[in-house]
């Protein structure tokens, strides 16, 4: 690994696992913002889109973490994309390889954008009377340059109440300022400060990374697949509530709004079959249909069990992408 601490870039071998890279970076007091990863793949698998990387920075996608990539092309040549912060030199062809499922070539190396380990971490949990109130509060903060480093918004149990946990980090004064702004907005929006769930940090702390996406203490059901989808803010509450209502008779699921962008959010859900495992395909199809109803974009559907059919076939394909994939 080669670290350019001046530009905050680390050139890494993409065959490495992200946690190993993160561990190496932390030895030099840097991080690329990786949360906890289970069933870990190599970094190149995440970058090719075979798996969803969960850097805990709430508004970041994995592609945004790379300043450049070095690709081995199908014809055997190796090419590094220009390593600059931004460019206007034509279409950004890195995006034909990132997320392409190895179609355009294999990513061998990349320049990861890294950060200094934060001086301060602050976290809190709030309860909102309903999901829409929580989502609106979060949305307005994110749209006003006050996005937390990580967030977890969910509907715990059968309650109508929504639980919003979040964390800020960075240079001390900036972290404190942003945290205070966010907490004030929560209070102004009628949310009440609550005790953090088990395993979540609270107040000032020294934990690097975000809490796990899903509550692994619920042992009554076994997760069988994980669905991640992007939704516009307008449709988040509707989808989460309807998915929750549908779950009662067929399966049980946890859904967590875990990433917030300016105009959209990403929701991840674990689904648990309450019946025979053969129902997984039906459930996946149903959830993908529900995503379509809310104009969502299914990003990932991972089979967490064994021996089930390939769930990716339920992700609607994009005809233009298929045309471009064939061309390259």
């Amino acid at each position, binding site marked *: 690994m080669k670290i*350019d601490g*001046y*530009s*905050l*870039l680390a050139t890494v071998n993409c065959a490495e696992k992200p946690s190993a890279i993160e561990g190496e970076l932390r030895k030099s007091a840097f991080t690329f913002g990786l949360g906890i990863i289970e069933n870990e793949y190599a970094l190149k698998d*995440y970058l090719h889109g075979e798996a*969803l990387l969960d850097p805990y920075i709430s508004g970041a*996608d994995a*592609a945004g973490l790379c*300043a450049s990539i070095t690709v081995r092309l199908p014809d055997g040549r*190796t*090419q590094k994309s*220009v*390593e*600059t*912060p*931004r*460019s*206007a*030199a*034509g*279409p*950004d*062809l890195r*995006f*034909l*390889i*990132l*997320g*392409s499922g190895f179609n355009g070539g294999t990513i061998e190396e990349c320049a990861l*954008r890294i*950060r200094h380990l934060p001086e301060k971490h602050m976290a809190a949990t709030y309860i909102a009377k309903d999901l829409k109130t929580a989502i609106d509060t979060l949305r307005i903060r994110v*749209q*006003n*340059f006050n996005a937390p480093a990580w967030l977890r918004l969910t509907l715990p149990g059968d309650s109508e109440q929504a639980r919003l946990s979040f964390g800020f980090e960075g240079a001390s*004064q*900036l972290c404190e300022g942003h945290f205070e*702004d966010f907490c004030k907005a929560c209070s102004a929006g009628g949310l009440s400060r609550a005790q953090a769930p088990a395993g979540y940090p609270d107040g000032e702390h020294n934990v690097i990374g975000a809490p796990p996406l899903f509550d692994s203490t619920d042992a009554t059901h076994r997760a069988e697949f994980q669905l*991640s989808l*992007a939704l*516009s803010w*307008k449709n988040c509450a509707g989808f989460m509530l309807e998915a929750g209502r549908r779950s009662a008779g067929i399966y049980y699921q946890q859904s967590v709004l875990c*990433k917030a*962008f*300016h*105009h*959209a959010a*990403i929701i991840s859900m674990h689904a648990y079959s309450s019946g025979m495992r053969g129902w997984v395909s039906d459930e996946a199809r149903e959830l993908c249909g529900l995503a379509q109803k809310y104009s*969502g*974009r299914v*990003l*990932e559907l991972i089979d967490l069990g064994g021996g089930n059919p390939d769930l990716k076939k339920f992700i609607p394909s*994009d005809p*233009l*992408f298929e*045309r*471009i994939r*064939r*061309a*390259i």
Partner: protein
Amino acid sequence: MINNRKSLSDSQVSELRRIVGEDNVRTGDADCWALSRDMWPKTVLWTRHGNAPHMPDAVVLPSSTAEVSALLKWAENERVAVTPYGAGSGVCGGGVPLAGGIVIDMKRMNRLLKIDRDNMCIDVEPGIYGERLERMLNSQGLTHGHFPSSIYCSSVGGYVAARSAGQASSRYGKMEDMLIGMEIVLPGGEIIETSALPSSTARPELNQIFLGSEGTLGIITRVRMRIHTLATERRYLAYHFPGVKAGLDAMRHIMQSGLQPAVLRLYDEFDTIIAGTHGAPGPQEETAIVEQRSRFEIMMDDLFSYMKKSSLKSVLKHPSLLNSAIRRLPAKCLLVIVCEGDKVQAEREARLIAGICRPLAMTDLGEGPARYWEKHRYKISYKQSKVFDAGAWVDTMEVAVKWSEVEKLYQAVRRAVHKKVFIMAHFSHAYVDGCCIYFSFSRASAGPDAELADYDDTWRTALRTVHENGGTITHHHGVGCNKAPFMPDEYGALKNMYVKIKNELDPHGIMNPGKLLPDSGMAKEFRP
């Protein structure tokens, strides 16, 4: 002298008129000349030499996506070259119809279609000008946050097609950050929409393939982009640093500490004098700055003012002398900073930035220079430079590079073109991992032929040096004709991927031939 003009047949012109209406097809010389060029300085030189080498056969003004679709279907069937045209503010020749054919002028498609306050985004047609759109949004307490210096004479379609950046990009991002989705008409007339939702890496991001494609893959007919709540407060800061390196260190620390000022602009020594001369702030601050300047600097200011009025051309015939004189200036570089947001955000950011800058700076200049910069921020771009009136030429080159290579690249470019042109620069559009260097260069050449030769030679030398020093050849002006010869080096072996996409989407090479890559997808009959 009008060159290279082929006429469409009467029946072809009639068909165009049937599609967009009688008044919206222009074939007269004046219209065709006006849209045979953009703001690429080389086109100014062509005009000065009485040349219009790339006239279109017709200018067509559609008013809807359906009309654009019909036009592209017709053009593909007839194998007629198409050059999409926004407001014509491009400075790299992206709007020059190298192969003649039709220019599709998007100015009639200029509506703000929808404001979505929940998702804080808008749907707009591509022909709307940036300044008009900003005014419309401001009236509702909103902003698009995109403030190129060309805002009065540039349009949204052009911003997307060329990956534009505005002066407040450190806070609001560059066009690739602002764009959410778009509608595009492909050659042949097919209408497609890119996804308006984040991809996270699970899918290739098709927005990023059409962004920066400069009309070579299709025509943008609708754009969905971010908007923001209009800032209620601004704070202005300015400092003198003892040289470029100290100023760059301050910029880097600011961005890497998580701060997001709207504006960060560091001027090199000579650009600082220009900014100081023109940018004399409020009366009190002006006195303070003048008192701190050496007699030599004042003399240079006076000389420059004198030159501008009378003998600029003769001085610019000897750029190396001028560059050598500038190198002897006492090092002093101006950093201008604007923070904005609500009161709490703007004040906090200004306080933290001041804490970073003070230990590195020579002088705290107060608010004046930043306020002055803001007042005059759009003064330059939509007017032709007076340097052309003086018989010389001027151009700008905006490149980007990571922090660890910024100073090296800056010095290397200066050295490389030192004898060819008079050169200065400022540093702006700062990110966590690097920034943009915006070079301005000027020269008076010995005659029309020498002028074009000097112009091309300077660009070749400068861009080669940028690549040799780890930079990208453009941060926000795009490629057009001017930088196309350097795209094979920029893309390297990835170039073939673009060529394959181009051949798939535009098999007959009708879309903006000769742009981005010199020959890609350009059928023989269209080669200039």
